[in-house]
C-alpha cells in the first residue's frame, strides 16, 4: 500500500501553481508597431502600402499627369492644381482609406508627403 502510494506519487505530474493572471504569459511581439494584442485592429498599414495607394489615388485624378507624381509632390506647386482640386484629392483619399479627416486638418494637407504622414499616423486607417 505504501509502495503503491510512493509509486503513484512518483508518477503524478506535479501541479503548477498558477499565478493570479491564469495561464502562461503570452509571447510578446518585439517587432511591429502595435503591442495591443487583444484589439481587433492589429493590422496597421505598412508605409509602402500607404505610399502606393496614395499615389494611385493621385494618379487616377483626371487633371493630373501620372508621370509627374512622386511621393513628395506638392499638389498646387508641382502638379499645377487648384485649391478646390486639393479639396477633391483629400476627399478621394478619405474615401480610399475610409477615414474621417476634420475640416481644419484636411485644409492643411497640401502635398503627397503630408498626406502619407497623416494617413500612416492615423490609427484607424483602413
Amino acid at each position, binding site marked *: 500500500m505504501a509502495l503503491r502510494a510512493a509509486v503513484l506519487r512518483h508518477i503524478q505530474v506535479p*501541479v503548477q501553481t*498558477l499565478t*493570479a*493572471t*491564469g*495561464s502562461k504569459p503570452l509571447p510578446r511581439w518585439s517587432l511591429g508597431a502595435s503591442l495591443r494584442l487583444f484589439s481587433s485592429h492589429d493590422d496597421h498599414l505598412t508605409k509602402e502600402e500607404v505610399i502606393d495607394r496614395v499615389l494611385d489615388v493621385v494618379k487616377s485624378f483626371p487633371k493630373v499627369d501620372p508621370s509627374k507624381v512622386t511621393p513628395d509632390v506638392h499638389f498646387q506647386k508641382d502638379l499645377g492644381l487648384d*485649391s*478646390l482640386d*486639393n*479639396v*477633391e484629392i*483629400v*476627399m478621394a483619399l478619405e474615401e480610399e482609406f*475610409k*477615414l*474621417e479627416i476634420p*475640416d481644419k486638418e*484636411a*485644409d492643411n494637407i497640401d502635398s503627397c508627403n503630408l498626406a502619407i504622414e497623416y494617413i500612416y499616423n492615423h490609427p*484607424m486607417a483602413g
Partner: protein
Amino acid sequence: MSGATTAAYLARRAAQKERVRILYRRALKDTLNWAVHRHLFYQDASDLREKFEANRHVEDLDTIDKLVAAGEATYDKWRHPDPYIVPWAPGGSKFTRNPVPPSGIEIVYDYGRENND
C-alpha cells in the same frame, strides 16, 4: 478696391479662401450623401464645381463675403438628414460601441476551474 496688398487685405482674402475651401468640402460630401450612385455623383460634383468656378475671378471683398454667405445658406438648406459618417467617427454607428476597458481590469482564464482541487 481696398488698398493695394496690405496685410489686412491679404489676411481677409486668406480667411475667405479658407471659408470657400471648407464650404466646397462640405458641399461635396453632402453631394455624395444625396447622389449615392457614382455616375450621378460625378455629374452633380461637376455642376457644383462649375458654380464655384463661375465666381472665381471676383475681386471685391464684400461681394466675395456675400457670395460665401449665400453659398453657406444654400448648403444649410440642402444638408442631408442622415449623412454617411465613417463608423468609428463621432456620429457614426460604431462610435464608443466598444470602449477601451479601464486599466486595472484583467481577464482570468481559469475556464471554470474550482479551488477545491
